[in-house]
């Protein structure tokens, strides 16, 4: 039964029917992605993936629309994944990013999918990575991923996309904002949108000043000034994206990025399953008369994990992209 449905879906997919892709993404969203991905995985790896993040109101959707237009003018087919938040209370969501993309709705070579975050933190939804793979396997040349856009810690996008754009707008905070960690560290390209704003040049200077304090090993983030509404600066932005892709390929960085992205996906899937199993024991074994550490020991015993030291907080190995000038050289 399930296989009949899978075969039918794969046929629609192979016939390049948008409906097949749409259903496939729904399957992935409802935890039925495994068989699909297993079938389609050999076709994956062709698409150019671009991530777009930045605070709410900066113009991410408008930038997306301008980038879609640019990509289409070059004859490329495009997928757009746009993530908006789900309500933690009702689990409902209002997905409104399409409003800025209406001019591409009837272009058969543009496929737009809105996704609700469904409780996933980090600016994406749990199935975003699957959706990217499915669009890639469907044969779309460019996949654009737009994050929720709520925080300074939306860095998961950098694990998923080949090229990460961080969009900023003038007049929203002082120079300390650009020194903060997290989102500012993941940019392959900074985009100062609303470049006609009187404070746009100040923001550009602040970003440049921040970058001058650092010395980069490898790619040095580019900075593009855009006015997404009019399309001004989009050609420059596209050139910057192109040169980042060239850099990734020529330096071999692309294979490191792919390995990281793969590890990230495996980690997410494995943790998701572990968490689901963990939840089942959470209320049985975490008795209130135990202290939290002892209760954690009891829960872990179900998984064959006994006692032992508390591990260091699980941080992936640090891999600084840049170091502050003048503070290096001691340890090579």
């Amino acid at each position: 039964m399930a296989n009949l449905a899978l075969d039918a879906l794969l046929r629609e997919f192979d016939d390049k029917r948008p409906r097949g892709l749409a259903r496939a993404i729904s399957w992935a969203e409802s935890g039925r992605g495994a068989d699909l991905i297993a079938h389609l995985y050999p076709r994956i790896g062709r698409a150019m993936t671009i991530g777009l993040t930045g605070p709410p109101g900066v113009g991410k959707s408008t930038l997306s629309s301008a980038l879609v237009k640019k990509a289409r003018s070059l004859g490329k087919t495009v997928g757009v994944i746009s993530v908006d938040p789900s309500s933690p209370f009702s689990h409902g969501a209002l997905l409104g990013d399409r409003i800025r993309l209406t001019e591409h709705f009837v272009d058969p070579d543009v496929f737009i999918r809105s996704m609700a975050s469904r409780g996933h933190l980090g600016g994406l939804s749990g199935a975003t990575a699957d959706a990217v793979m499915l669009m890639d396997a469907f044969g779309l040349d460019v996949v654009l991923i737009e994050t929720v856009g709520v925080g300074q810690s939306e860095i998961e996008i950098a694990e998923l996309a080949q090229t990460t754009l961080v969009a900023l707008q003038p007049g929203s905070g002082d120079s300390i904002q650009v020194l903060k960690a997290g989102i500012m560290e993941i940019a392959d390209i900074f985009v100062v949108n609303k470049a006609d704003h009187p404070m746009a040049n100040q923001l550009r200077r602040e970003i440049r000043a921040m970058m001058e304090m650092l010395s980069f090993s490898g790619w040095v983030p580019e900075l593009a000034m855009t006015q997404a509404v009019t399309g001004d600066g989009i050609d420059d932005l596209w050139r910057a994206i192109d040169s980042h892709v060239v850099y990734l390929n020529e330096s071999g960085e692309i294979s490191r990025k792919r390995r990281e992205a793969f590890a990230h996906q495996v980690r997410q899937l494995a943790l998701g399953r572990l968490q689901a199993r963990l939840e089942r024991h959470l209320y049985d074994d975490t008795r209130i008369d135990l202290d939290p550490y002892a209760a954690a020991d009891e829960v872990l015993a179900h998984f064959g994990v006994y006692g032992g030291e508390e591990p260091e907080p699980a941080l992936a190995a640090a891999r600084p992209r840049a170091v502050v000038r003048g503070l290096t050289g001691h340890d090579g």
Partner: protein
Amino acid sequence: MANRPLRIVVAKAGLDGHDRGAKVIARALRDAGMEVIYTGLFQTPEQIVQTAIQEDADGIGLSILSGAHMTLFPLVLDQLKAQDAADIVFFGGGTIPPEDADELKKRGVKAVFTPGAPLQEIIDFVQAECGKRRELVG
């Protein structure tokens, strides 16, 4: 599978700039736990149906206050058929006289809600009809 939220496209078509009603419905459906995709104003029937297909929507709710309902609703129905997407539940609302509403329902619009319709009635309708569609399609 089980509890993937229902997905509903809420649309405004043609030269009709009044979207307060559409936004109220969008919000009510959101608060009832659905994922609502809002298209924005001035959409063509083709844009609406393409959106519903790409978003794998279970239903389309079209709001029309301009008086053009006898033109736009049938055009959306035609598009749904032409795109092999007639399984998507199509309903709507607005300032629509009862005799027009009856005619639209005869032609395949699943429900027509007019001013004064309780939000709960609309939510119940969407959950029941779109829920059925979801069971069929999976």
